[in-house]
């Protein structure tokens, strides 16, 4: 997919006091911002949107059929075995949790660092987080042998003694981590949406107005409310920042706290967190590139944003490379023959090809972004984001499948070949994610209007270029 350079949108009503800003292209006023961002929601959907939506819904339908069949028939419809108890299921889970991380980081961490360039992308990044966490949360449920009893992982009062849950299990930590992460992300996202929902409400008529009226909680833009609101956002951001670090650390303990060679290592939490940031940013960038094209947001998602994101990618990609190296060093330095064998097997064993994909996509491909020319080519950037996502999926696959495949007793070694049903579940995750994302694009403002307006106003007010706050 080749994306054209931003073209100038014709403002509905030319305004004299326009702001030249690299973070908001064109000469935009508050009204333009409202108009540009709300317009796609108030028009009939475009053919492109329909095509994308039907495509995503088809993927989702494949996923639903696969999962339904699997739940009705048994986990045996997946290619797992007595040795490899997790495969695509937990790979998908970790992958989607990782994707989710960028949203929170962009909105929370960059908010705390007062990075103005986040404003164009934070809304959709947060939405992405929520959808990714929904996708992620589904896999641990369907991977259970008896998903209809999944509620047993919650410590609810019961007549069994009462019998509680095992607080020592990393899977249980996952329940709380993912649950908290989803809840806090949702709250953060929704709180951020309220002013924009009010804007939509005030532009709408009839039923739409009623719906947005309910959803916008009676927002009136009062200065007192704004004051509390900003404080709440900072507080939520401060909470979300350690949360985002904790979530993937906890996910990594699923592996790190077990005795499987290749899993049992303390490097996993930072390794997982940085990997999550990496894959999340790649996914955000990919979605931005698509949305910018599909929703005609070239003025709001500018080359400056893309440049900034690319720099983060190359930075985090390098850390991921370092993590891979550290892991190998640790295995060698540990002196544990089991660890050493696990990594030798990972790289040169029967599934060595997956390790090669992982390294090529995650470590080598992003290095191209050192080049300004590559960063300038939207096509190349798009390709690299896809590669990074593929690579990060394989990273999790490598960790899970190759470690389990050959552990302690050679008699129990086996292999792993996914079935069509499993592939269907993988596809379904993407279907669900893109379906939700497309619905979001269609019904909710993709870009935070009030924050853009603040950026525009600030630039106008101070009369200088908002570009000055481009990230390092």
């Amino acid at each position, binding site marked *: 997919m080749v994306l054209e350079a931003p073209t100038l949108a014709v403002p509905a009503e030319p305004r004299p006091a326009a702001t030249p800003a690299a973070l908001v292209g064109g000469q935009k006023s508050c009204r333009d911002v409202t108009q540009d961002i709300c317009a796609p929601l108030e028009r009939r959907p475009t053919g492109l949107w329909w095509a994308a939506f039907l495509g995503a819904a088809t993927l989702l339908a494949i996923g639903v059929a696969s999962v339904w069949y699997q739940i009705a028939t048994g986990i045996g419809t997946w290619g797992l075995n007595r040795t490899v108890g997790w495969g695509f299921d937990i790979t998908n889970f970790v992958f989607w949790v990782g994707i989710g991380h960028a949203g929170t980081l962009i909105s929370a961490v960059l908010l705390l660092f007062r990075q103005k360039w986040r404003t164009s992308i934070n809304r959709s990044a947060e939405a992405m987080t929520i959808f990714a966490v929904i996708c992620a949360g589904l896999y641990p449920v369907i991977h259970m042998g008896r998903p209809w009893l999944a509620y047993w992982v919650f410590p609810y009062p*019961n*007549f*069994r*003694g*009462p*019998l509680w849950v095992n607080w020592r299990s990393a899977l249980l930590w996952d329940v709380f981590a993912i649950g908290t992460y989803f809840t806090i992300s949702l709250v953060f996202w929704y709180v951020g949406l309220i002013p924009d929902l009010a804007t939509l409400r005030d532009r709408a008529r009839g039923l739409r107005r009623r719906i947005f009226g309910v959803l916008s909680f009676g927002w009136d833009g009062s200065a007192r409310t704004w004051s509390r609101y900003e404080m709440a956002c900072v507080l939520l951001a401060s909470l979300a920042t350690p949360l985002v670090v904790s979530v993937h650390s906890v996910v990594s303990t699923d592996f790190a706290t077990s005795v499987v060679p290749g899993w049992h290592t303390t490097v996993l939490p930072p390794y997982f967190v940085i990997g999550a940031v990496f894959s999340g940013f790649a996914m955000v960038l990919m979605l931005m590139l698509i949305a910018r094209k599909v929703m005609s947001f070239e003025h709001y998602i500018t080359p400056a944003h893309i440049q900034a994101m690319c720099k983060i990618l190359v930075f985090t990609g390098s850390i991921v490379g370092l993590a891979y190296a550290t892991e190998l060093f640790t295995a060698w330095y540990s002196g544990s023959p089991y660890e050493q064998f696990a990594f030798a097997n990972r790289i040169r064993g029967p599934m060595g090809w997956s390790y090669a994909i992982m390294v090529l996509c995650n470590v080598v491909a992003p290095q191209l972004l050192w080049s300004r020319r590559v960063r300038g080519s939207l096509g190349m950037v798009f390709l690299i984001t896809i590669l990074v996502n593929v690579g990060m999926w394989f990273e999790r696959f490598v960790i899970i499948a190759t470690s389990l495949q050959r552990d302690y007793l050679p008699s129990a070694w086996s292999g792993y070949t996914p079935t069509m049903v499993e592939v269907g579940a993988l596809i379904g995750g993407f279907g669900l994610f893109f379906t939700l994302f497309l619905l979001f694009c269609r019904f909710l403002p993709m870009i935070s209007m009030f924050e853009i307006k603040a950026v525009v106003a600030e630039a106008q007010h101070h009369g200088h270029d908002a570009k000055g706050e481009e990230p390092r």
Partner: protein
Amino acid sequence: MLSALNAKILAVLMLALGAAVLAGTAEVHLPGNHEGYAPVQPIAYSHRLHAGELRIDCQYCHHGAETSRHAGIPSASICMNCHATVTAGFDAVLQERERAEREGREPERIVSSELRKLYDALGLDEDLQPTGASTPIEWVRVHNVADFVYFDHRVHVARGLACETCHGPVQSMERIRQFSDLSMGWCVQCHRDSSVAPETGAGRDRASTDCAGCHY
């Protein structure tokens, strides 16, 4: 400040809470709890009469309780230990004797309608002679522990536990009724309380709360 809407919401919440509290005390059970279950049995056997008035030992009929995990529902032949001669209630027999005396004849054998069912099951005719056509009695089972529990009567009897502890005042039940809720929490609570063995048991074998005590 309590706005009108807030007040409404609060009221609904209070109502819901009240309903929940009521439900907790009333005869509403969660699924799987069959406490109080007292189905109609094919023969109107009275535990009140047999265990209460006549004071027949529980294990006279439920003899498996001592040696097996199942206490067992007694065979019809056990009933026949008495009911080979006792064919009706004492009152009915007395009345017939009086009537016969009045009418100046030998009293006839009175067979109560419920015992007739027993004899039918055993294939016995009017004179309690076998006809060869027997049909087993389909009692409705009352006490069902949850699935996947291995309950063993023999251990509990050996430890000197009274039948009433779990089965309740059977001697006063006309029709047998489930007395305890037979939930896992109920079992476990008793096992916790019995961490010291009753006088009969050896000190080392306390009631266990290990999963594999019941689930295997």
